């Protein structure tokens, strides 16, 4: 939505959406109100939003929830809960989702695992979006050599297979770390990899949008008024990109969560004993036939989280760009 241009109304009935009848007569709805009105009607998006909020609360209050439920902590090993062949035992009243191959409560670890997934997803997406938006703005606005250099850099980064890069970093920097211990497998490296691999996607989209927007009248007007390049980019153009940026960032979150799970599955992500859904799935895979619960519940948690963010992203897209939804 432009802050300086007139709102475009394609159909007569859309006009009603933007107006609200109050005591002072008919007034225009604020962009936030419009957004909320639209997304409220999308039941799938609302359910997804509810799930995401619930997930965030679970992650924040994980210790309290585990305590209230009377579960053992996520790191508490109880090898007496393993069978005579070392196989984990299934759901019981004491361990509602069963235990893993070290006798640790799976529900407790799934709850704590949400912290890892959300932190990686949110922080990774935030950093990627910030870098991508800044770089995309510059590439699209300045064009010429700036655009060429940035675009080629994006091409190079996009051609790097992220998982292989992660494997390489994990292998090279595992025990003693690299650069004096600065790089070690774990959450910082995963967030770095996600941000490193994802920012070009954001930058490309932003660049394309900026290329079309820089020729618009309001940009010309700002330039004529003597606004600096930075002001034009960040105060005139960027607000018009809010909707697509929000949508894309929200879709980046489940991608980041999936990448974290994949890296942890490959053994180069979160280190044990920290609970991570990807690592739990990796540990559970060889014993799926005898311990289905160990694979199923972290897998379901991951599936539902990624699905919720994807559906929420779709809902945001429809709510922020109703024309595209039609």
């Amino acid at each position, binding site marked *: 939505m432009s802050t300086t241009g007139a709102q475009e109304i394609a159909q007569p009935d859309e006009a009603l959406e933007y107006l609200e009848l109050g005591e002072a007569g008919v007034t225009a709805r604020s962009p936030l109100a419009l957004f909320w009105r639209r997304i409220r009607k999308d039941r799938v998006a609302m359910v997804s939003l509810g799930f995401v909020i619930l997930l965030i609360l679970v992650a924040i209050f994980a210790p309290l929830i585990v305590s209230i439920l009377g579960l053992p902590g996520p790191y508490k090993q109880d090898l007496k809960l393993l069978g005579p062949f070392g*196989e984990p035992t299934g759901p019981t009243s004491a361990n509602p989702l069963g235990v893993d191959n*070290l006798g640790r409560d799976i529900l407790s670890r799934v709850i704590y695992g949400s912290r890892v997934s959300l932190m990686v997803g949110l922080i990774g997406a935030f950093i990627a979006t910030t870098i991508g938006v800044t770089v995309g703005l510059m590439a699209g606005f300045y064009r010429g050599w700036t655009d060429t250099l940035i675009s080629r850099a994006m091409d190079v980064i996009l051609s790097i297979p992220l998982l292989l890069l992660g494997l390489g970093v994990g292998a090279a920097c595992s025990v003693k770390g690299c650069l004096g211990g600065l790089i070690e497998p774990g959450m910082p490296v995963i967030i770095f990899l996600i941000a490193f691999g994802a920012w070009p996607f954001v930058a490309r989209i932003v660049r394309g949008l900026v290329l079309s927007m820089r020729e618009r009248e309001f940009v010309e007007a700002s330039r004529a008024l003597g606004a600096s390049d930075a002001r034009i980019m960040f105060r005139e153009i960027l607000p018009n990109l809010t909707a697509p940026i929000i949508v894309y960032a929200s879709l980046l979150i489940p991608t980041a969560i999936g990448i974290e799970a994949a890296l942890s599955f490959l*053994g180069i992500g979160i*280190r*044990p004993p920290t609970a991570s859904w990807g690592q739990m799935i990796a540990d559970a895979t060889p014993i799926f036939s005898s311990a289905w619960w160990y694979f199923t519940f972290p897998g379901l948690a991951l599936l539902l989280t990624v699905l919720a963010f994807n559906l929420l992203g779709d809902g945001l897209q429809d709510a922020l760009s109703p024309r595209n939804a039609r």
Partner: protein
Amino acid sequence: MRWLRPIGALALVAAFGLLLAACGSSGGSSSSTSSESSVPTVAGFKSPTNEKLSCVTKGGTLNVLQENDFEHLDPGIAYYSTDYMVVFATQRPLYSNKPNTASEPTADMAAGPPEISSNNEEIKIKIREGVHFSPPVNREVTSEDVAYAIDRGANPNVANPYFQSYFSAIEGAEKATGGPIPGVKTPNKHELVIKLDQPQGQIVADALVLPLTAAVPKEYAEKFDKNKPSNYGSYQVATGPYMLKNNAEGKVLGIGYIPGKSATLIRNPNWKASTDYRPACLNEINIKIGGTGTVLAEQVLNSTNDVLAEGVPSSVLKTAATQHKEQLELSPGGGMHYIGVNNKVGPFKNEDLRKAFWAALNKEALNKLAGGKLVTINATHWIYPTISGFEQAGGLKGPSGVDYNEHPEGDQKLAEEYVKKAGYPSGKYTGGEQISIVAANGPPAKERAEVINETLKNLGFNTKLSLEETATMYGKYCNVPKEEITVCPSVGWIADFADAQTVLNITFNGKYINATGNVNWSQANNPEINAAMDKAVTISGRSARATAWAEADKKIVEHALAIPIEWDNQPNLEGTGVNGVGQLWNIGSWDYAWTSLK
């Protein structure tokens, strides 16, 4: 000096039977004695000691499912249990073991037992007549072929991994580079004389079971041995009942062995049953390489003529043991696993802290993680069942009077007492130094590492746990002293043959700490123990050697140079139509020369 006489073996069996009766059993399985001395077996399951060794049927094709590829099939280089399964089916070292023995080798390429001189510095061996190489060489094997095989051990293009450990006492071996070794003499076509410059006749004679001593025809092989590395393995000929399929020129690579994909063993047309003690029941053995252990194991369980080459994954073990018992064989003497703790660098330089670690460890839990009592025996010292000296070293219970060795379920209180003795009055380590733990990342090593990590944390240590591929764990970290890894919890060892020197010397003697490829993982360098082992190396006579090495083993326990976890029972899986025969030696793997179809 002669091999251990049968009457001696029976006496040991009787003594061990009494010992086991006193130990008792638990968990639905029980240990019992068998014809091989000091071998605990699991009641109700097949083992190499109670299998039918004669052919059930003659002929047929065995399908082998093997997850990992071979490392080397050249008999002069092979040093891996999976490689041995093929090498010992295709080659005839001077001596070899029947499947149900580990300490009484049978003359194979040799015509009789070795004659060791009274000063322990000369060994005479008669070479069996009438044994021929497979095509394309075809001719009869002579003593010169065996001499060449031993000479190859010193050739850097061959780089035999154990030549220095066992054959360096041969005159001229230290300076040999692949040419004739002065101390290896062939007075005639069927006699071999090995002269030593040190009194190590017994250990060298014992080492003649290793595949390095399998005859290699010089006129055929030397052109391959000139290459760096030697590619004789890709053109090898056989003396055993089977050979790798080859073409008319002798090429095996791409025909009988396709790396990463398959290997095919066919009958050696020049092998004569009358010259061999092996029955060689099968006509062909097809080995398929690759796949995931769990999937392969499930496949074998539901098959007729398949066997699984490597051990049974713990995830399948319960199914195999409870629903397919007749298809599961458990072979004791499958080696052992232990924790290497750095005696040179870090907090475990302090012996009391090592003892504290040992006391705190719940070894029963660690063994449960590996599959439980069917496949693990709590290790109380290092000379494991089937190795000479096991009983003298304390047998199942271990040496007496070692309190930290008496609580396999872990004793936190005792552990804290040792921490206090180490100079930390609170009973928790407060030194602050972070300790590095590098473990293998596959099950059960990964799970064990996490338990060990928690144990150390509970003692107050600040730990950093890293999980690596096994090859990386060994090659880049645990085998490299300068990496200064504090704890290597996933190390394991299998004896090269049934003499305790092969278990203890290279792994605990301070003079074998190498800059790379180091297997003295604890970097143990206790002068008293070093001296005891150096003396034991020179002792001749099985019984005397067993006693001497048992004393060294006791000292290793008393100083807690490392921490033993388990002695392995190797689980093997066969299809319903296979009469698989496992090897009591070589970690219990299938012996293709004895296996038959039903």
